[in-house]
């Protein structure tokens, strides 16, 4: 599973920053059938959590309506230098993590 996280590298303290994440995932809806008519089991990333220096700042519950390779974007306030770490889990139980360093000045 490949994922990319984007945060501004250097920001001023108190500044509003844009955090983006893109994850490569099939997001199988559970509504499809294969060539032999068998149902393809649902497999989506069901939970995604973002922590900023171990404090949870963002949580999302995703479902069948989200397209493959989900892309999420949100805003947070830059308070201290450190890391924003994402972790997620899909219906098959596969877990993933990705993080990005952030440097706060001032």
């Amino acid at each position, binding site marked *: 599973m*490949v*994922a*990319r996280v*984007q945060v501004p590298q250097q920001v001023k303290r108190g500044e509003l920053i844009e955090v*983006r994440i*893109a*994850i*490569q995932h*099939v*997001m199988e809806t559970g509504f499809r059938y294969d060539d032999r008519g068998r149902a393809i089991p649902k497999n989506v990333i069901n939970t995604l959590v973002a922590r900023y220096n171990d404090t949870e700042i963002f949580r999302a519950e995703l479902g069948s309506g989200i*397209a*493959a*390779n989900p*892309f999420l974007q949100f805003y947070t306030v830059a308070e201290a230098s450190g890391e924003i770490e994402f972790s997620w889990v899909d219906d098959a139980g596969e877990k993933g993590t990705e993080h990005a360093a952030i440097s706060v000045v001032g």
Partner: protein
Amino acid sequence: MRGEGLTADSSYVRSLGLFIGVHRRLSAVSFLLLLMFAGGPAPAAEPQRPQPLKSGGEFSSSELRALQADDFGNPGMLWVVRGEKLWGEAAGRNGKSCAACHGDARQSMKGVATHYPKVDPGAARLVNLEGRVNLCRERHQGAEPLQYESEELLGLTAYVAHQSRGMPVNVTIDLQNRKSYERGRDFYYARRGQMNLSCSHCHDRNWGGRLLGETISQGHGNAYPIYRLEWQTAGSLHRRFRSCLFGVRAELLPGGSQELLDLEFYLAWRAGGLPVETPGVRR
């Protein structure tokens, strides 16, 4: 003389399923060339590139173009990142990675994709980027070839082609690849499938027109591998060929087959000058 040229050429043109419009474009010069090559199987009149050349992205919505231009939002970049990781990973019996021979792809692979497909001297056959990766695996890494359309092969080809982004597609026809060029061109102009259509019917005669909800593009391969929204994933040019073959209800040739390789070469010639866009984003 011009009239004679048309007569002499007409049986060939008809056999290819070309339109009458192409007849009219036959100039006196091409007629002379035709005389020089008289008796040979190949025609002298070379097909034309669409004018002006337009990349497939120009027929996309502005939102889609913005998505492709955004290096983070572009979902195809996930495959490029995947390829970048694979580039540094050892594979096969010899325990070598791509980087062990080629070093930093950002330097060594710059502009490489613009010259593909090309004839590999050792194998004496036409290879595209996918074929090149697998030849490298076989010869230098001692690894099993990657399956066509596999995530790994898509990642590596996307990563390599991405290094040429913005550089013009530039293949030249020479003695080694002329046969491929001719076969690819003939494939392009031949009617096929239950719809009895050639590639040319849509992509030369009707580009810019509508096909149901879609705008017909000129059919260039300069952005591949692409991320296609309909597929919800990245895919190779040969997968796109198969979509077109399916659309005209023709035989679905396997990815990496000689016919599709030759067609890829012809299209690379036809797209000459267009910048590489990998990874493109299309509907």
